[in-house]
């Protein structure tokens, strides 16, 4: 929070024109959103149950964004770089696990022991994604550790394409359908069981992550490196190892997110990582990049806004096919938050500041 203020010295307290314009734009957008919401609510097309459904769908989608966003935010915390290949790490776990799931399904094991199968799939996917993440770090990032900031960004994009098309080459470009898990079919009260499973899965993973970072030596090393890399190295922390651990943990969570995604959406393909990757990155910025709870909150907020936004903001204006504007809404909210809270919802956690 204290980061933004002292950066600009415009001489005294003069009001900056560009700042004023930005605030005006923000104000107009906010007014449009508020007016639209009021009009929609007054029109009353939707029942309370439908609003609740929107929120539930949003939370299920947002929980997956959150899990991927954690990987972005952790890497940003230790390396100050955006790992744009992270979406593909997510994809690689989900794609590879398809074959395990398919095998389990065919052998009948999935029906007989659904929970064991599910855990096996989650672990397998996590391990695959972890391996991919670590390899990407080793090959594409570590040799460029001392290079200017833009350079690893470019290799990240390169690694992303490399992974996409490697998977396309290995597994084909078609869409593959995950087998349905019988125990997760149907509804639990008003929720789809798969959505409940996703939410619980994300919560458990988050809890484990916090435990790992707070209670283990490796977690301590990661936190130390995130705080100040040079100082940590001087204190005897193995920086390279801490960074690899970060990628491994981030990759593992992306792998888990991959399977959870496949539970809800059933279909996987080589390109599936791109959009969730971009959205998760948005979520990380939304919550305040470098901030772990921020990434989780950002993911949930983004998911809910995407789900509820088109109906809430635009129905009142009578705009047709408003659902198409979903991405516009998501990114407009990002702009608004960056205008009014440049450090994200919960504030950036960068070096020099206290970590949780």
């Amino acid at each position: 929070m204290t980061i933004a203020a002292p950066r600009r010295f415009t001489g005294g307290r003069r009001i900056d024109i560009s700042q004023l314009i930005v605030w005006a734009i923000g104000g107009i957008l906010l007014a449009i959103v508020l007016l639209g919401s009021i009009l929609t609510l007054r029109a009353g097309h939707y029942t309370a149950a439908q609003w609740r459904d929107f929120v539930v769908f949003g939370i299920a989608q947002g929980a997956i964004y959150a899990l991927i966003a954690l990987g972005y935010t952790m890497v940003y915390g230790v390396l100050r770089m955006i790992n744009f290949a992270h979406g593909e790490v997510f994809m690689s776990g989900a794609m590879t696990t398809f074959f395990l799931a398919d095998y389990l399904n065919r052998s009948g094991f999935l029906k007989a022991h659904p929970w064991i199968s599910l855990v096996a799939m989650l672990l397998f996917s996590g391990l695959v994604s972890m391996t991919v993440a670590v390899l990407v770090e080793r090959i594409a990032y570590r040799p460029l550790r001392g290079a200017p900031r833009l350079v690893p960004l470019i290799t990240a994009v390169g690694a992303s394409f490399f992974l996409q098309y490697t998977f396309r080459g290995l597994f084909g470009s078609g869409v593959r359908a995950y087998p349905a898990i019988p125990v997760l079919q149907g509804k639990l009260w008003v929720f789809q069981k798969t959505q409940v499973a996703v939410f619980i899965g994300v919560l458990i993973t988050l809890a484990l992550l916090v435990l790992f970072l707070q209670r283990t030596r490796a977690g301590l090393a990661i936190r130390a490196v995130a705080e100040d890399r040079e100082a940590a190295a001087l204190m005897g922390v193995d920086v390279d190892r801490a960074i690899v651990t970060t990628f491994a943990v981030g990759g593992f969570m992306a792998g888990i997110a991959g399977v959870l995604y496949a539970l809800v959406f059933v279909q996987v393909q080589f390109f599936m990582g791109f959009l969730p990757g971009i959205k998760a990155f948005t979520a990380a910025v939304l919550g305040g990049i470098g901030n772990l709870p921020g990434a989780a909150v950002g993911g949930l907020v983004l998911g809910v806004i995407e789900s509820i936004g088109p109906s809430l903001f635009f129905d009142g204006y009578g705009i047709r096919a408003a659902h198409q504007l979903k991405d516009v809404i998501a990114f407009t909210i990002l702009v608004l938050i960056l205008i009014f809270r440049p450090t994200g919802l919960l504030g950036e956690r960068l070096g020099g500041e206290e970590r949780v």
Partner: protein
Amino acid sequence: MRRPIRSFTVLLLVLAFVLAACQRAQPTPTSAPAAQPSPTPAAAASPTPAAQPTPQAQVTKPTDPIGVLEIKPGEPIVLAWMLTVSGGTAQLGEDSKRGIEIAIEDLGGELLGHKIELVGEDSGCNPEGGQAAATRLAANPRIVAIIGSSCSSEARVGAPIIDQAGLVMVSPSNTAPDLTDPAKHVEGYLRVAHNDKVQGRVAAEFVVNKLGLKRVATIHDGSLYAEQLANVFAENVQKLGGTVVAQEAVSPEDTDMRPVLTRIATQQPELIYYPIFNPAGSYITLQAKEISGLENVKLMSADGLLEPQTVQNAGQAAVGLYLSGPDLTVLGPKYQEFVQKYQQKYGTKPVAGFHAHAYDATMMIVEAIKKVAVQAPDGTLYIPRKALRDALYQTKNFPGLTGNLTCDQYGDCADPKIAVYEVFSTDTTGWPDSAIRKIYP
């Protein structure tokens, strides 16, 4: 310690890129227009409909306003495909590609003493892919004609490029009315697939007259094909006395359709019509029945989803789904023969709806080439490009697998037969018969 490893990795990467580049590169074609042939003087110029002999009587090379393709003895006649063979729509394009391959096989791989060579570009079922593929094909001076594209949006941007380059394309599966709209049609574009003005009408008749449903909702994905088909459908439903209660749109990359379906649920439709592609189409099929208020809604889509993947991906949720598309059941014995060849060659029954159209497109092009090509005595073949286009437009009662094809001045050549199918089983091993059956007309 570290240096050698790093330089080794770099070396590997460089090698990988070089290899990748080599694989992509095509042999540079011999620049055809530059080399003047030396035809034997004894030869008499064989006249063709649009080609006039040049002033010197001995030269048999025809002239043509947009160029003459010259194929030397031993050089192949190059046909190209521009289809979507990757991503969610891969089955659609792959199926058409197989139709072309079978057509070439039926010709014995030869035409007028030259081998037929087939090249192609993936067009990805989106405007960007269509533009890229068309640009690459337009840059290849050896191509005689193109069979493609798969999706209407590819042709919207691709056809003008092909047209500008002097080439001609015949699409096996573009159905958007826009492409042969008098105001927007380009000369280098024809199609043997039905115009969606027909498909949308048949679908609407089925819904209102056969099913007796009056309240419908439509969803398109912003693509030319989907948007226009959804609109034609909506117009026809209204004409027949039904109501269109919601017209929504998603984007092709969307995976979570629940919000948009919930929006639709507020209007209580009896049927949702979503003429889009996979995977988005399967997501709607999968998620629609989960929405409260849509438990009993009927689902209907069109030829974009008429492929096994629709059923494979959506599983049990796909049962009961209606799909409109080309009616392959009324086609004659020639089509049955074709299907057998298909099965022998690829080990599966046709996987989408436009293999026969692709076969017809290829054969129509071959017919036109035969009509206009001029053979020099030394075996060099000249194909005047404008004359080739004209010959295609003059196609009349051409006996194809899909019916008798007659092209109008805007490039519509189809003999449209539309049927509505119902998915009754999730078993796709014997596609189409094991999973879908025709229920209308």
